[in-house]
């Protein structure tokens, strides 16, 4: 009576092969390792014997995945999903390796695969069991998710009682019930504040979500209506794809499907190597990125004293392209994870880079795990991109992933340039921010949270033959779309007082980076409303290329006690349009003298109070530039001036343009006077410059004397603490004395996490999946 067996329940024969899922996966890995081909597939029998049948199968599955995404997203009410397309569906084989993926946020090509592998490694088939009609939900950043707002539904696919694969669907939800509202909030410093966290939980059986899950999950977030419709979106898409697979097997047979599901991965592996050989150049490329984490400021209100410090995230990469077309991405020297929400799991890196590569190196429909198998990743354990502590927060892992990857794109662009494929060169990415987030009671009287996805349309980097695109894209979503004002005004109690191209935001160059844009929002008809800022401010996270400048950094503008209610009532002037020149601000001239304005470089804040008629400037960044600015065509400068993409002062100072402005305000640049001025600029440059080695002597003295801001020293100290190689290279470069060292302990800032850490793998009964060299 009510006596439980001590035997684990449900050990099945899911694969009808006598092997457990883990044995099956281990065997694939072993064959891949020993032969160099995915699952030992030196020959692609199906593809080679029946290429048309193989392509038909590919087209059916890929078309079905895209169709499922396009159809399912109409169920969602969240503009993030419905407008911005922040969703994706992916098909996996039984081992959890990705076969094909839909369009959309294809960073998840591997993240859901990592969750499936986690279930496999931790014997989910025995407990909680895997059955036809099951649904699993996951968003756990400690096992591979990018950030907790990416909620994934994973459905096993069976045929005649045998597990033949999985389908996963992911949507970016508006709120995760974190410490502060918005899907990527900043107020927390650890996982425990990152919001509702679900680890591959069985949340449905017989195709129905479980009632305990529905009740618990909806009350765990601020936006239950959006949440449940997002879930229905994911379930509908997964079930459409499951039916598609069933149809394909009915038409083509199980053997063909199973062969395809392995051969297409090997084909993807070979495809990447062949693209590398077709487009790049063998050799070593070294690039680096940084981003600021300014947490010392009073507008960062967090609950942990040990997180109250300014720090810098550091991502050096050595990219080695080998003569055989394989490549190695080595992040040795990266800084340690931190007490913020910008850490990233290794899979966010290994999976995520393909969303970027699909925009450059592999612009094909065949994105799958094959590319992963053609790449060696070295992500040192303990770094921000492979944390060794189970407490780390990940809510806005993108704060640095975007820039960490941009270093790779710049390396690739060097290779494209040297090989003559100038049309492929991209100087880098924008820091895809600001993120306008917040919450409270909205215009419909409901508890609400917002996360404006206008950031999906930042400026792109300059090319070697043309300017970057203005307000066009974000690396993390190839279908970038800023969204319609009318939709955002329905989703957010924030009226638009302006939406303009941001002057001077694109990095200067022969070809300039694409400009970002800025929207001025006024709080309207909200109650108990809050908002915060999130982006780069004190630093640029992306460099220009070959003489081009980085894009402009961010800054923040917010205003309270504006008097706008009365000014609107009496018809007084209002702040409208863009913040054209922050050196000479204009908005303030249209606010009451009582207004409290914050205009500074603190672009990272936590939840602050906003009344109706308060203002918030959402400035979306530009992209970096390419080539020496004094090589820029005169006509291009003229156009930039007339379109207000460039302020006249900088047309003179940076581009050497000599121009006039007529009575109607139209600028004309004089080519001959500009040429003469540029000759002078060359002389001025040399007059103010030093031989590099002379300057290095001065810089060395500053290092010996430890003369640098604490955050700079802190960054180096955490990188030194994790990497002897980086330390040695640094000391060798600057010829520092053997006993020179820099330790966190000497900096006078909190050092929690510097010595004592505990990895998830140390928890009982947990087997983590490692997919990189650590």
């Amino acid at each position, binding site marked *: 009576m009510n006596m439980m067996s001590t035997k684990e329940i449900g050990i099945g024969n899911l694969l009808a092969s006598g092997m457990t899922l883990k044995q099956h996966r281990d065997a694939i890995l072993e064959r891949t390792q020993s032969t160099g081909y995915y699952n030992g597939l030196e020959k692609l029998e199906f593809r080679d014997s029946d290429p048309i049948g193989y392509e038909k199968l590919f087209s059916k599955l890929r078309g079905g995945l895209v169709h499922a995404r396009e159809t399912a997203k109409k169920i969602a009410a969240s503009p993030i999903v419905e407008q911005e397309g922040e969703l994706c569906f992916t098909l996996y084989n039984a081992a959890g390796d990705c076969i094909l993926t839909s369009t959309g946020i294809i960073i998840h090509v591997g993240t859901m695969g990592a969750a499936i592998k986690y279930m496999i490694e931790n014997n989910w088939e025995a407990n909680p069991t895997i059955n036809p009609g099951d649904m699993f939900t996951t968003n756990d950043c400690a096992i591979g998710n990018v950030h907790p707002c990416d909620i994934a539904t994973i459905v096993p696919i069976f045929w005649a009682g045998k597990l033949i694969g999985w389908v996963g669907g992911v949507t970016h939800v508006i709120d995760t019930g974190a410490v502060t509202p918005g899907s990527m909030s900043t107020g927390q410093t650890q996982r425990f504040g990152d919001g509702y966290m679900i680890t591959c939980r069985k949340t449905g059986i017989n195709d129905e979500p479980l009632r305990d899950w529905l009740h618990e999950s909806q009350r765990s977030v601020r936006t239950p209506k959006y949440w449940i419709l997002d879930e229905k979106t994911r379930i509908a898409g997964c079930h459409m794809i499951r039916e598609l697979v069933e149809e394909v097997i009915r038409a083509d047979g199980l053997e063909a499907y199973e062969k395809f599901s392995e051969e297409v991965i090997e084909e993807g592996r070979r495809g990447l190597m062949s693209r590398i050989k077709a487009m790049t150049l063998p050799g070593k490329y070294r690039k680096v990125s940084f981003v600021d984490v300014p947490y010392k400021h009073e507008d960062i209100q967090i609950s942990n004293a040990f997180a109250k410090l300014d720090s810098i995230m550091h991502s050096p990469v050595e990219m080695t392209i080998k003569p055989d077309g394989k490549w190695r991405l080595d992040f040795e020297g990266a800084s340690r994870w931190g007490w913020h929400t910008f850490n990233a799991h290794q899979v966010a890196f290994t999976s995520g880079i393909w969303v970027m590569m699909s925009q450059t190196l592999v612009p094909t429909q065949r994105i799958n795990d094959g590319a992963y198998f053609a790449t060696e990743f070295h992500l040192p354990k303990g770094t921000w991109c492979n944390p060794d502590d189970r407490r780390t927060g990940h809510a806005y892992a993108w704060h640095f992933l975007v820039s960490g990857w941009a270093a790779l794109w710049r390396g690739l662009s060097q290779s494209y340039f040297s090989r003559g494929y100038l049309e492929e060169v991209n100087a880098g990415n924008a820091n895809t921010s600001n993120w306008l987030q917040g919450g409270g009671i909205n215009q419909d009287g409901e508890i609400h949270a917002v996360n404006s996805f206008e950031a999906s349309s930042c400026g792109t980097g300059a090319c070697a033959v043309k300017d970057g695109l203005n307000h066009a894209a974000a690396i993390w979503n190839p279908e970038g779309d800023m969204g319609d004002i009318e939709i955002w005004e329905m989703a957010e109690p924030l009226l638009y007082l302006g939406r303009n191209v941001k002057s001077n935001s694109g990095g200067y160059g022969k070809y300039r980076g694409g400009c970002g844009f800025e929207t001025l929002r006024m709080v309207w008809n909200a109650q108990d409303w809050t908002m915060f800022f999130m982006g780069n401010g004190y630093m640029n996270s992306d460099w220009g290329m070959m003489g081009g400048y980085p894009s402009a950094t961010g800054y923040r503008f917010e205003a309270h006690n504006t008097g706008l209610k009365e000014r609107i009532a009496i018809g007084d002037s209002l702040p409208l349009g863009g913040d054209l020149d922050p050196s000479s601000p204009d908005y303030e001239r249209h606010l009451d003298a009582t207004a409290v304005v914050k205009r500074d470089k603190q672009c990272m804040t936590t939840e602050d109070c906003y009344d109706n008629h308060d203002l918030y400037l959402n400035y979306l960044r530009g992209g970096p530039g390419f080539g020496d600015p004094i090589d820029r065509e005169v006509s291009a400068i003229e156009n930039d001036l007339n379109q207000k993409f460039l302020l006249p002062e900088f047309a003179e100072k940076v581009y050497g343009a000599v121009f006039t402005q007529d009575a109607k305000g139209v600028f004309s640049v004089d080519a001959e006077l500009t040429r003469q001025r540029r000759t002078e600029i*060359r002389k001025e440059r040399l007059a103010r410059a030093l031989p590099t080695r002379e300057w290095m002597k001065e810089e060395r003295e*500053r290092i010996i004397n430890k003369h640098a801001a604490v955050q700079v020293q802190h960054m180096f100290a955490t990188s030194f603490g994790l990497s002897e190689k980086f330390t040695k290279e640094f000391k060798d470069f600057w010829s520092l004395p053997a006993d020179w060292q820099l330790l966190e302990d000497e900096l006078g800032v909190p050092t929690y996490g510097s010595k004592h850490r505990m990895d998830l793998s140390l928890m009982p009964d947990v087997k983590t999946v490692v997919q990189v060299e650590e």
Partner: protein
Amino acid sequence: MSYTNEQVSHLVEGSLDWETTFRMLSMPKDNSRFEQYLAALQAKVGFKDRIVLPLAPHMYIVQSAKTKQWLIKCDCGHEFCDYKENWKLHASIYVRDTEEAMTEVYPKLMAPDTEWQVYREYYCPTCGTLHDVEAPTPWYPVIHDFEPDIEAFYKEWVHLPVPERVD
């Protein structure tokens, strides 16, 4: 797919029509591009040294006509160093490490805080061309950002004879 020498020259000049540029972007790559690219660049430069590999719009690895040594060279004729070295160590540098220097190039609030990040501008010591802008933290080593494997590239990837090199 291949392109005419004239089209490649226009690409180098930034004057290629969009239709052809778009075709270059969207179609499989033309393996003959590298040779055409070298020819287009060689016709532009005022020196006799043979271009081995372009590095930047005004910078090349060249085979010295006199010594056959491979050098990094500006198109004004300035020779920086051997091709294996980091040319930046042989350049002229100007570091924007004050607010005043930053606001020369960006409006207020739109440049980095120089306590966090500086701009290092590397010029050709002869002609003043701006070859690169680094944007690191203070103290950061000067990055040697590209070490091409030219032999493997010529021999195995584009199947061209490797230019003679005397070290």
